[in-house]
């Protein structure tokens, strides 16, 4: 493992992940009965035959909500690796992250002021 350096552990983790997932899916593919019927494939609506089209033009408001969520979700993704190696950065790393979070807080304040978070 010495020669592979730190990448070896990443490859090992990847391999173990894929094989476990693959094995699980393979076993279930072998044993599961597969008898599709027209009623089974219909969308489930509390026991009713589905009524009305599902592809309906939603209000644009759902899209705004989704975007605000994605922004802060991505922020969390960046926070995680930083938080793991937090000890090594010292004051500089901390300040750097403060600036990053600060900019996003600015975005949140703007969204809040514009009333995006309030459902009309």
């Amino acid at each position, binding site marked *: 493992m010495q020669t592979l350096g730190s990448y070896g552990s990443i490859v090992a983790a990847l391999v173990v992940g894929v094989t476990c997932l693959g094995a699980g899916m393979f076993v279930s*593919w*072998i*044993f*599961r*009965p*597969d*008898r599709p*019927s027209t*009623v*089974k494939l*219909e969308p*489930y609506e509390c*026991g*009713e*035959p589905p009524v009305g089209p599902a592809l309906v033009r939603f209000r644009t408001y759902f899209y705004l909500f989704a975007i605000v969520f994605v922004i802060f979700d991505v922020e969390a993704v960046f926070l995680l690796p930083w938080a793991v190696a937090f000890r090594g950065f010292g004051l500089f790393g901390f300040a750097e992250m403060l600036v990053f979070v600060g900019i996003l807080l600015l975005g949140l304040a703007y969204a809040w002021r514009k009333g995006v978070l309030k459902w009309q």
Partner: protein
Amino acid sequence: MAIVEKWPAFTERFPGGGLLLTSIEFFLNWGRKNSLWPLTFGLSCCAIEMFCTGAPRYDWARLGNEVLRASPRQADMMVVAGTVCWKMAGRIQRLYEQMAEPRYVIAMGACAVSGGPFHFDSYGTVRGVDQLIPVDIYLPGCPPKPEALLHAVLELEKKIAADRLPGRRPVKGARP
């Protein structure tokens, strides 16, 4: 046609095949019978007794059906708890069809078994849910006490334990 319809019959012909298949069946059935997720499907009085079975005193989570699933896609067992009427009949069939295989049905209460107190004079009641969907366990009582429902689930587990993979030769003398 799923692959599971073909390979058991194929491996049965080999000398060790039968042993391999029965051990596989044992593990499959052991997994299925100990995690029967019931569909929340209460109609009338028996539904409240089903809640009591889920409540702390009788607690059918001990038998593995902890999670009461609202949608048939994630449910294994449908407990028909209450009076089945003609207006609901079509919906019950649709819900049963939309459940994933392998699925099991417990007809809980005299109403679901045979129309119960409404067997004779009611114009709106289906005399027994087995006119609509195949039923595995019939549980009498009006309403049956939670202990009786726990007993019904145990009987269902015995029945699941005897399940066999599709395509295998039937065991001589076994119940159909």
